[in-house]
């Protein structure tokens, strides 16, 4: 059993509170990502899970056993958790095989069984021929596979990954993302992936927890984060999201609402329980804006147009006073020039729920 229940944990270093009432409920075998800017507390959360940090409040249960709570702390060496560190933390004085075997050796597993398990695991990650190399003689991708093999050999039911791709170049990242997905499929372990890169998080995880200033803002499926953000911060953070003021929001009852944005009537998606409001915030993405000739369109002034290959990115000033900056993607071939007047229609958007999920502090 490897489900993780994090309930209301607090952690502070001296005067600075790093985690505030963080709660997450993760099912066994799930792949979740924690996404946030640097300094948001995500690494501290990982270190609390691994047992390197003690909690000031709250409780962490793994597979039904309480591993961290005030007055109770299971040492990291007895948690049976695997961690893939940012720099992989391979022991430089041991060969690949020794790195993978170390945990089994500590566990007192006899040499013959140890050797067979190690070679099986190394074959799985296709490192068999490199078993006697030192970590210094491996490429970045090979090192990552050694780190993963270490978790596989220990049969860790929970694997924590601490920004494992942060130090690698872009070309390698795509390949290594696939490795994680394959590892997850093979081991069935519960994966807890820390990153500040939203494309990584959205691509890999079953569910993503967005973190900021020590709080979980939203814990949801990637597509829900993108299309139904529960707060302005999440809306602005995911996928170049844009938040605007809307007026006269009237739910239509079918999951949609009518509203007025920049003085123009629009149809938006909304939560089932949404009520009529005079004012509110709405979220949308550059792709939701389209060029149009309709009379009810938003008039804009192009301030800058950049060629991006498949599309043209235009920065425009919109609204009655022409003081609201917006970004819009226009499919190529297209030609726009600075100062040109265009009309835009908002085809999709999301009414951000009024009372964003409250986090008592």
């Amino acid at each position, binding site marked *: 059993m490897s489900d993780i229940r994090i309930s209301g944990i607090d952690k502070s270093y001296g005067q600075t509170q790093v985690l505030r009432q963080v709660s997450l409920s993760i099912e066994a075998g799930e792949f979740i990502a924690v996404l946030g800017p640097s300094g948001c507390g995500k690494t501290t959360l990982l270190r609390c899970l*691994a047992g*390197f*940090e*003690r909690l000031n409040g709250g409780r962490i249960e793994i597979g039904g056993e309480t591993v961290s709570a005030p*007055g109770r*702390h*299971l*040492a*990291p*060496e*007895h*948690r*049976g*958790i*695997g*961690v893939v*560190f*940012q*720099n992989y*933390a*391979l*022991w*430089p*004085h041991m060969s690949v095989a020794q790195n993978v075997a*170390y*945990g089994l050796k*500590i*566990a007192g597993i006899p040499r013959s069984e140890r050797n067979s398990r190690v070679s099986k695991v190394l074959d799985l990650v296709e490192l068999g021929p490199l078993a006697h190399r030192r970590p210094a003689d491996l490429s970045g991708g090979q090192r990552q596979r050694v780190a993963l093999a*270490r978790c596989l050999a*220990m049969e860790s039911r929970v694997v924590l990954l601490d920004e494992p791709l942060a130090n690698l170049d872009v070309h390698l990242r795509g390949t290594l993302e696939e490795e994680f997905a394959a590892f997850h499929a093979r081991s069935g372990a519960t994966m807890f992936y820390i990153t500040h890169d939203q494309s990584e998080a959205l691509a890999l995880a079953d569910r993503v927890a967005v973190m900021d200033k020590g709080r979980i803002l939203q814990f949801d499926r990637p597509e829900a984060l993108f299309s139904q953000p529960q707060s302005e911060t999440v809306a602005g953070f995911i996928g170049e999201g844009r938040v605007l003021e809307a007026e006269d929001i009237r739910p239509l009852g079918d999951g949609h609402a009518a509203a007025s944005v920049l003085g123009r009537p629009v149809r938006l998606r909304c939560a089932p329980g949404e009520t009529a409001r005079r004012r509110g915030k709405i979220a949308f993405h550059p792709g939701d804006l389209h060029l149009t000739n309709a009379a009810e369109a938003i008039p804009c002034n192009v301030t800058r147009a950049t060629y991006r290959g498949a599309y043209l990115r235009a920065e425009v000033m919109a609204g009655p006073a022409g003081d609201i900056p917006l970004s819009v993607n226009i499919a190529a071939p297209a030609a726009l020039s600075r100062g040109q007047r265009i009309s835009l229609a908002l085809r999709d958007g999301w009414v951000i729920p009024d009372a964003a999920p409250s986090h008592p502090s």
Partner: protein
Amino acid sequence: MTLVQDQPARPPRARRLLRRFGSERVLTLVLILFVGLLSIAPLARLLHAALFPQGAFDAARIADILGGRRVLEATFNTLWIACAATLLATVVGTLAALLTSLTDMRRRTLWVFGFVLPLMIPPQVTALAWVQAFSPASPILGPLGLSLPPGTRHPLYSMGGIIFLLGLYNAPLVFLSVRASLQRLPASLIEAAHANGANAGAVTRDIVLPLIRGGIFAGAALAFVSSIGNFGIQAMLGIPARIPTLITLIYQRLNAYGPSALNDMALLALLLALLTVIGMTLTAWLGRRGDQRVDAAQRPPRMALGRWRLPVSGVAWLYLALCLLLPISALFGTALVRGYGVPLTLETITFENFANALFQHEGIRSAFLTSLWLTLLTVAILIPAAVALGYVLSWRRGWIARLLRIASELAYALPGIIIGVAMILFFLRPLPFIGTGLYGTVWVILAAYLSNFLALALRPILGGYAQIDRALDEAAQLAGAGVFARLRDIVLPALAPSAMAAAILVFMTAVNEIQVSVLLVSSRATTIGPMIIFLEEAGSSTLAAAVGCLMVLLVLALMGLSLLVGRRLPEGVLPWRD
């Protein structure tokens, strides 16, 4: 992270929890016991004996002792000598560091080796060598006719002589500190000044000196601590010259009155400790206000000395010849003649003194063997202890780690003789289980060594920890390894070079030391360091010189050996490597 855990004491669970939390908790407890027993407890005992000898605070007694004419004189002498010697050491050390780090002086590497060498020679040997330099046996001054005619007062048996020798002796300390600062100096700052038209002199005065101020004052603080606590030079010159300092006063009174003077001497030791801490803090505070730039950028280019290169190199080498060759050659000269004052010629040369020291003299041989196994035992205990202590200091937070750090540094910063007084006080009374006291046995010396040299062993090892990625240890922890398995399998292989360097430093310091053991030696247990003073006091100058020569040879052999294995040792740990 606190390591001690409050757990409900239900038997079956308690057992499981002991296994679970055992290793780190046991390690921390052992370290607290180790540092507490060797550092905190003896110093606390000293404090108690100094201030509450009869169980009550007696201000009149303290005023009476500290107000005595001899004590006042010794206090004044101590302060004057320490300050003047620090000034001399700072000027010489800073000049040497600027010369070797910033200019294209000739044969720098060899010069640095020679400049730092005096630091590794025991101070009592240095003092003896300088005293012999003016003897007729000196192969340099003798033939030149510059040796003292018999009957004249020796110029080094004076306040100025003590200051001169202490200043020269501690100059390498300042040199090392300033050189470390210079190596962190960003090259671009100097290049920018050159680009603005500044010449070498202006760059040194306006850019370099202000930026390395922190290093200069840090070196001066070290030189102050070392000068005020240097027993070897203060005793070898100050006692014959009748210039009392606090250290020699404590030594002479304890020798004269024995343990009955202990409480009063504890008070003097406390005064000495106070002066040391004040001087060190003041100097460090003066240096802290400077701009401290830490930058691993490329090292500044060396400035060409141009037509000054030859004269400057010449003066530098002349200095080395004066400070190294003059005394050392005189020491060998004295060791090679039959009696003090006999000039060294082909007819008078004899190896009798060396033969005596090595094979005949029972006391010297046993003292040397005692020093050797005491030092080896000290290294064998201190290195593992320092590795474990370094683990807690580097990778664990909280008040336990902070307390351990202060306690281990304290015993090192205080003059060795204070540790000596504290150890006598602590071990004078019978021990609870053994029933007899350890006072007068070799074990007190061992305890004092462990206490005094812990910080010396700790320094390179902490540097080693700073180089290790902590995730390596955490990964092993996740693999299920307890703290002892991790220290053995993960930390030690990575730390081996630093541990080796620490072992060399401790060995070289402890095998010749004098200030810690001079109060603790007895007829049953003598170390080789104080032997020179005893021989000199007994009038056997030539035998003392032979022992001194052997010490110098031992130091040179060890330094050479360390350079041979030096390729594998971390950079900047062994001071004599450039």
